[in-house]
C-alpha cells in the first residue's frame, strides 16, 4: 500500500518538475522568504550586545513568547484544516479523472499530493534560519545546538503540515457520518473557541501568558505545556541557551505527533470515495441577499456600456457571490490576526522602548517592520495578483469580446482597486491603532492608496504575462512574484521619507509619489493590455528530447 503511495509521489514530483510555472513559483517563494529572512536578520535589534537585552536573554520570556507564537501557528493550521475544502484541495479535475480510469485509490493520490506540498513548507525553515542565526550569534549558541534547534523547528513545521491534512481528512470522513447542521455547529464552536484563544494571545502583551493561563486553572497550564507548539518552542529556546537536557525526548515527542497525524490521515482517507474529490457542485441560484443588494447598488450607479466597466462589474458580481459564501476568506483574516499577534510578541520580547536612544536610531526601521507586517498581511486581499488567471478556462469569453485589450486590463484594475480598498481601508485604520502609528506616519499612510495603485496594476500585468500553464489550475506564481517585487519597490521610498521629519518635504514627496504612481500604473496597464493580446489559450509542452534521441532503447521500441 505504502509502495503505491510512494510511486504516486514520485510521479507527482516528476510531473510538476516539468511545469515551468511550478518551478518558477517555488523559486519566487524561496526568494521571497530569503529577502524577508535577510531583512529580519539585518534588523539591528538582533545585533545589539546581549547585555542590553535582559529580557531576550531571559529564557522564560523567550520561551513564552515563542510558545505563544507557535500556538498561534498551530491554531491557524487547525482552523485552515477545519474551514478548508478538505482533501479536495490537493486534487485537480485531471487527478479526479485519473482516479476514475485507474485502480489508484484516492488515499494514495492524496497522500502523494500532500507529501509533495512539504517542499514549499521548507521555505518556512529557510525564513527561520535567518531569524535564528543572528540570535544564536548574540547568544553564542554552539553550532551543533543551533542546528539541533533548526531541526526541532523543521519537525514542528512538518507536524503542522501533517496535522493540517489529518484534520482535513477527518473532516472529510465526518462528512459521511455527520449531518450538515451538526458539522456547521461544530465549525462555529471551533471558530468561537479559536477567536477566544487569539484574544488571549493578543492580550498577552499586557498580561504575562503563564499567569493568564494559570488563572484558567492547573489543567489548562498542563494542557498548554503538552501542546506540540509549547514543546517545540521550549526545546528551541533551551537549545539556543545551550541546554540539551530534553532534546531527545522533545524530538521523539514531535516525531510521534507527526507519525500519529500520518496514521490518522491514512485511516481516515481509507473510506474516501472519489466522488468527494470532485469540485463542489454549483448552487442552483443566488443565496446571499447581501451580495445581491451590493450588486444592485453598483448596477444602478454605472453605465454598463463602457468595456472596462463591463469587465469590472462582471468580476465584482462573481467575487461578491463567491467571496461572501466562501469560508476560506477566514484564512486571510486569521493571517492578519496572527501577524498582529506576532508583532505584539516581537515587541514584548524586544522591548524597544527600554533601549536608550533606540527610537532615534531605529525609527525608520520600526516603520519598515510595521509596514512589512502590514503589507504581508494585506497582500492576500489584493486580488489583481491573479486577475487574468482567475478567468482560467473562461478566458476565451474575454478574449473574444470586441474590446481593446487595455480596456480589459483597466476593468481588471478597477475591480482589484475597489475590492482591495474595501478590505484595506478598515484594516489600515485598525493597524494604525494597534501599531500606535504617529501623526507623521499616519500622514504617510496616505501612500497606501498609491501603493495599491501600483501593486494592482502590477498584479494585472503579471496576470497577463504569466497565465497558469493550462488555464485549468490556478497557481501561486503570480502572488509570490508580484508580492516579492512590489515589496522591494514600495518599501524603500517609504522608509526614507519617514526618516525625514519635515512636513513640507513629506508633502512634496507624496506629490511626487502620486505622479509616479499614476504614470507607472498607466504604463503597467498598457503593458498588461499587450500581454493579454499575446496570451495563448494553452501552451504546448516542449518535446521530450530523450524520446527523439536514436537510442538503442528507442529503436527497440520502434521495432
Amino acid at each position, binding site marked *: 500500500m505504502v509502495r503505491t503511495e510512494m510511486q504516486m509521489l514520485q510521479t507527482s514530483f516528476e510531473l510538476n518538475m516539468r511545469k515551468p510555472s511550478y518551478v518558477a513559483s517555488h523559486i519566487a517563494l524561496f526568494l521571497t522568504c530569503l529577502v524577508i529572512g535577510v531583512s529580519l536578520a539585518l534588523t539591528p535589534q538582533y545585533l545589539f550586545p546581549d547585555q542590553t537585552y535582559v529580557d531576550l536573554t531571559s529564557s522564560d520570556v523567550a520561551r513564552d513568547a515563542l510558545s505563544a507564537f507557535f500556538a498561534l501557528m498551530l491554531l491557524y493550521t487547525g482552523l485552515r484544516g477545519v474551514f478548508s475544502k478538505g482533501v479536495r484541495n490537493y486534487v485537480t479535475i485531471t487527478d479526479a479523472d485519473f482516479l476514475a480510469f485507474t485502480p489508484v485509490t484516492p488515499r494514495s493520490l492524496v497522500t502523494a499530493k500532500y507529501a509533495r506540498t512539504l517542499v514549499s513548507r521548507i521555505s518556512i525553515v529557510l525564513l527561520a534560519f535567518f531569524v535564528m542565526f543572528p540570535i544564536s550569534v548574540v547568544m553564542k549558541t554552539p553550532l551543533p545546538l543551533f542546528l539541533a534547534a533548526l531541526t526541532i523547528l523543521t519537525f514542528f513545521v512538518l507536524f503542522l503540515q501533517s496535522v493540517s491534512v489529518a484534520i482535513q481528512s477527518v473532516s472529510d470522513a465526518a462528512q459521511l457520518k455527520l449531518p450538515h447542521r451538526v458539522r456547521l455547529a461544530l465549525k462555529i464552536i471551533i471558530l468561537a473557541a479559536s477567536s477566544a484563544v487569539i484574544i488571549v494571545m493578543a492580550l498577552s502583551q499586557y498580561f504575562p501568558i503563564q499567569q493568564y493561563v494559570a488563572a484558567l486553572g492547573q489543567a489548562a497550564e498542563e494542557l498548554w505545556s503538552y501542546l506540540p507548539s509549547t514543546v517545540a518552542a521550549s526545546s528551541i529556546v533551551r537549545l539556543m541557551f545551550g541546554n540539551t537536557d530534553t532534546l531527545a525526548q522533545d524530538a521523539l515527542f514531535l516525531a510521534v505527533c507527526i507519525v500519529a497525524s500520518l496514521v490518522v490521515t491514512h485511516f481516515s482517507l481509507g473510506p474516501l470515495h472519489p466522488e468527494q474529490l470532485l469540485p463542489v*457542485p*454549483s*448552487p*442552483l*441560484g*443566488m443565496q446571499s441577499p447581501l451580495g445581491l443588494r451590493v450588486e444592485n447598488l453598483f448596477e444602478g450607479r454605472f453605465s*454598463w*456600456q463602457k*468595456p472596462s466597466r*463591463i469587465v469590472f462589474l*462582471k468580476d465584482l*458580481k*462573481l467575487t461578491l*457571490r*463567491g467571496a461572501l459564501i466562501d469560508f476560506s476568506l477566514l484564512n486571510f483574516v486569521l493571517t492578519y490576526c496572527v501577524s498582529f499577534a506576532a508583532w505584539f510578541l516581537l515587541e514584548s520580547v524586544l522591548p524597544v522602548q527600554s533601549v536608550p536612544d533606540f527610537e532615534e536610531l531605529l525609527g525608520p526601521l520600526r516603520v519598515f517592520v510595521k509596514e512589512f507586517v502590514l503589507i504581508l498581511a494585506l497582500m492576500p486581499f489584493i486580488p489583481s495578483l491573479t486577475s487574468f488567471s482567475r478567468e*482560467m*478556462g*473562461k478566458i*476565451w*469569453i474575454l*478574449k*473574444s*469580446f*470586441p*474590446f*481593446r*485589450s487595455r480596456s480589459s486590463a483597466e476593468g481588471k484594475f478597477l475591480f482589484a482597486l475597489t475590492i482591495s480598498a474595501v478590505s484595506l481601508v478598515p484594516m489600515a485604520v485598525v493597524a494604525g491603532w494597534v501599531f500606535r502609528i504617529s501623526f507623521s506616519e499616519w500622514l504617510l499612510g496616505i501612500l497606501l492608496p498609491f501603493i495599491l495603485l501600483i501593486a494592482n496594476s502590477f498584479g494585472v500585468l503579471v496576470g497577463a504575462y504569466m497565465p497558469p500553464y493550462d488555464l485549468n489550475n490556478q497557481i501561486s506564481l503570480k502572488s509570490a512574484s508580484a508580492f516579492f517585487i512590489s515589496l522591494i519597490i514600495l518599501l524603500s521610498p517609504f522608509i526614507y521619507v519617514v526618516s525625514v521629519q519635515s512636513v513640507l518635504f513629506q508633502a512634496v514627496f507624496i506629490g511626487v509619489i502620486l505622479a509616479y504612481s499614476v504614470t507607472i500604473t498607466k504604463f503597467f496597464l498598457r503593458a498588461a493590455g499587450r500581454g493579454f*493580446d*499575446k496570451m*495563448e*489559450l494553452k*501552451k*504546448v509542452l*516542449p*518535446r521530450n528530447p530523450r524520446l527523439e534521441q536514436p537510442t538503442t532503447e528507442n529503436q527497440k521500441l520502434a521495432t
Partner: protein
Amino acid sequence: MPQYAIETFDITKRFNEHTAVDRLNLRVEEGTIHSLLGPNGAGKTTVLNMLSGILRPTEGSVKIMNIDVVKEPEKAKSLVGYLPEEPQIYEILTVREFLRLIGRAYSVPRDGLEGRIDKYLKLFGLNKVEQVFCGALSHGMKQRVVVCSVLVHDPKVILLDEPFYGLDPATGRLFRDLLREKAADGATILVSTHILEIAERFGGRVTILNESRIVAEGTLEELREKAGASGDSSLEDVFLALTER
C-alpha cells in the same frame, strides 16, 4: 465577383516548434455556410481561434468583412459570434445574466436586449432555468446557453467549433435550421467539425484540412471530382480519399 466575409492570407500559427496551421488561405463567401473538415489535430480549432481574434497568427493576416483582425481587433470581433469546442462559462452567473453580459459586451441596445434574450431562451427551452446558475446546468444545457450567446448579438459572421456536440437531436435540428435562416439573411457561417454528416447536410462549400494545411476545397461535387470518386460516393469516402487514410 463574390464578396468574401472571411479571408485568410498565408496564415501560420506556431506553438514553440510545433506548427499548428501552415500558410493557410481560406475564403468564405458572404451569406453562405462553409464547413471546415479535418481529422483530429489538423488545426481546425486553431484556425477558428485566429479568425475570432483569440489567437494571433504567427505569420499572415486575417480579414473579417474586409477588416484586419490583427490591426483592428475590436471592429472585427464586434462582427463575430464564436462558439468554441468545449466552452467554459461563468458558473455563478445565471443564464439570463450571462446572455445579458454578452449582449452588453457587443453593444446591443439596452431596450432591445431583453427581448432578444427572451426570444432565444424560449426557442432553446431555457426559459425555465433562466435564473439558475450556469454552473448547475448539464453539459447539453450549457451548450444551449452558449449557442444562445452566439446568436443574441446577431453577428454578421458565425464561427462554430463542433457546435452540435452535446445537443440533443431536436435542439440540433433547431440550431441547424436557425443557421440556415441566418445565412439566408446574409450572415456567414463557418462550421468546423469532424462529423462529416453535418457538413453534408449543410451542403455548402467544404474545406478539408490535414496536417495543418488545406488539402482540398470546393463543393461536394468538386471534391468528388478531385478525389476521383464516383458520383454516389459519400463525403466520408471523399474525405478518406483526400486525407489518404
